[in-house]
């Protein structure tokens, strides 16, 4: 083989390697793109809800309110009859079956929406106003084009009569899409059009806060001690290896531990952010200690020696000089650890967070769900409307994770000192 041939061979080997590298990056990006595209195309419609413009007549007789009724009477008034009367006037129905089908086009909360409008406005007794009432899941999905209508009637959830009403509403411009406030403010519900992630977000925030409060101080102190004060011997080596092992333990194992110790032995309440926070703290602890120690290690010895040389004690040199310099790395490590904890589902399933919780938790010891668990729960539901809700919740979760990771990168780049 001549020199030229060998050179050519070496060059083509390099070219091949570059091509493989590019190809693998391309494939990886393609998968991410398919995933994101899939989630966005399914989920983005969940941020809008279908509403039906309906004329509501606050009939004084049906409300059973006297002239000059007190505020308490109004709050206790029953708006069911007013709702039924107003809804069946929105389209001519021939018999009770048709009336029922008509009423089912509206969400189960129409009654409360009518009541809310009444409480927010003064003196609507005997008045007629036009309200945007939330449509039922079936109409919502039909209007968003997620449910086929060109099927024979017995295979559709929506009857021919309901389709006729829907077409009439669309023709008269009564149906429109509004911002879905329920999705962000309400807790879970069995009616997809009323289900929201408000409760799950609050539950996740509580869990992550408790996790932060427990894991951060312990992890920082442990890593400072191990890195700066502990003697280097077999025992600390053993501890170091085990911290690395713990970081690799599957999260479900921490769930089992929490089930046995926190729930069975200490008897903390099930399905609460308190237990979730402690479990996640146990899980994240080693995952925070490792970057903490790395960032302490990255502080050059000259800093420590300089402090010691001017007469500082070991404690002072560490806490006044080394720890502040290591802080950016410590913080970004913590945030990445918390981001992992935020997306964790498996241990939460074991401690009973896979629960149907309607009320938004007001404290960490109220039963609650969390964002990834909500995704899991909705993905199991039969109703079609939950498909888009599931994808939308994944989008929200991804947004939170991305924000946390950006914050971590930002903190490190902004504050980290480089030692050249």
């Amino acid at each position, binding site marked *: 083989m001549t020199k030229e041939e060998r050179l050519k061979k070496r060059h083509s080997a390099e070219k091949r390697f570059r091509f493989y590298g590019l190809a693998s990056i391309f494939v990886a990006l393609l998968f991410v793109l398919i995933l994101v595209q899939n989630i966005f195309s399914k989920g983005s419609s969940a941020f809008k809800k279908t509403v039906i413009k309906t004329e509501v007549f606050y009939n004084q007789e049906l409300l059973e309110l006297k002239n000059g009724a007190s505020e308490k009477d109004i709050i206790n008034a029953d708006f069911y009859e007013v709702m039924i009367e107003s809804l069946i006037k929105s389209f001519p129905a021939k018999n009770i079956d048709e009336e029922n089908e008509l009423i089912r086009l509206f969400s189960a909360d129409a009654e409360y929406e009518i009541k809310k409008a009444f409480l927010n406005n003064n003196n609507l007794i005997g008045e007629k106003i036009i309200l945007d009432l939330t449509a039922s899941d079936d109409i919502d999905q039909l209007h968003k084009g997620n449910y086929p209508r060109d099927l024979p009637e017995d295979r559709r959830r929506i009857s021919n009569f309901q389709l006729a009403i829907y077409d009439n509403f669309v023709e008269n411009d009564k149906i429109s899409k509004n911002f879905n406030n329920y999705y962000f403010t309400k807790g879970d519900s069995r009616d997809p059009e009323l289900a929201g992630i408000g409760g799950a977000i609050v539950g996740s925030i509580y869990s992550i806060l408790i996790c932060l409060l427990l894991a951060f101080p312990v992890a920082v102190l442990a890593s400072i001690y191990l890195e700066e004060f502990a003697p280097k011997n077999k025992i600390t080596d053993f501890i170091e290896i085990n911290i690395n092992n713990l970081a690799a333990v599957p999260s479900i194992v921490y769930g089992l531990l929490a089930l046995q110790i926190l729930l069975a032995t*200490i008897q903390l309440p099930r399905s609460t952010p308190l237990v979730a926070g402690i479990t996640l703290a146990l899980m994240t602890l080693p995952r925070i200690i490792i970057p903490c120690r790395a960032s302490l290690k990255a502080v050059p010895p000259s800093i420590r020696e300089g402090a010691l040389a001017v007469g500082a004690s070991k404690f002072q040199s560490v806490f006044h000089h080394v720890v502040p310099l290591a802080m950016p790395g410590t913080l970004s490590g913590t945030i990445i650890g918390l981001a992992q904890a935020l997306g964790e589902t498996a241990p939460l399933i074991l401690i009973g967070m896979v629960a149907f919780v309607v*009320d938004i938790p007001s404290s960490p010891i109220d039963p609650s769900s969390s964002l990834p668990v909500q995704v899991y729960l909705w993905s199991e539901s*039969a109703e079609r409307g939950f498909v888009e809700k599931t994808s939308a919740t994944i989008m929200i979760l991804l947004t939170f994770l991305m924000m946390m990771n950006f914050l971590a990168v930002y903190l490190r780049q902004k504050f980290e000192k480089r030692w050249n």
Partner: protein
Amino acid sequence: MNESKQGENMNRLLKLMLGFLIVFSFATNSYSRDQIKIVGSSTVYPYATVVAEKFGKGGKFKTPVIESTGTGGGMKLFCAGVGANHPDITNASRAIKPKEKTLCEKNGVTDIIEIVVGNDGISFAHSVNSPDADFTKEQLWRALAAKVDVDGKLVENPYKKWSDIDSSLPNKKIEILVAPPTSGTRDAWNSLVMAKGCTKTAKSIYEADGKKAKKECVKIREDGYAVEAGENDTLIVQKLTSNPDAYGFFGYSYLVANKDKIKASAVNGVKPSLQGIQDYSYPIARPLFFYVKKAHVGVIPGIEEFLKEFTSKKAMSNRGYLAQIGLVPLASDKYQSTRTAALELITINLN
């Protein structure tokens, strides 16, 4: 000066830790509930949640918290003891087993109220794009069992295509998605299809070998023709849609919610329908239950009222809101006895 500052810092740290301890002990000691807790079957979960939501909207009580643990897991939690840390109600897609009764009794859960919620028909379904099908229980057993009898001998299941079982069946590969062993739906499938479809020959061979036919008949083949699909019924529906040759079984409510995508095949010539499941002319219908701890009635607020709401005509009757999402209501005589059990808190015999 620095020393005192450090001292201050340490003090602050100690106080913080003390604060944590106080919060924890507070959380453990003063923990009592004003909210009903329900665990159990994922088949009953959709119905229980709807009732819970309506109950919560009534405004007098907090909305009950419902955890979907599967029937077996729910029973374990339910029978673990009496007190605010244990659930008040467990949902079940089959009746309580003698073993579970003993466990309950051992842990002091002696008074249990049994409520029959309604009926469910296990639907054996496939994609709407494939032709209609009709199976007998024996054919289903032959397609799924680990061992079947061929010419009077017990052999590892040899059937690869439906037409191998019976020439009238389609010439397609057998592919069935089955629920995991922990699910109540699988339990019901085992007792209603596998045990019933098991041939006399197979049963007698098992018994001649000194084995229990009931146990052996329900064993499901593990050679790739029956695929275990997990507790997620929505996922099964998705898989059926994408693969027109595959079959799966799940609760009737999933069939109702997805009738644009999947359809049920007939079993013994009968397709699942509201009427057929209610009078049990559909051959794989089963009752659904929930169990209530009587000791918690009056301690945890709202249990009695919740039972009243669940068993009300508004919820449980043929035109009730549970029927709309696929629960098959009880026949009227059974409804009466359930309603009485709920109102008068009649407990079941544990022995």
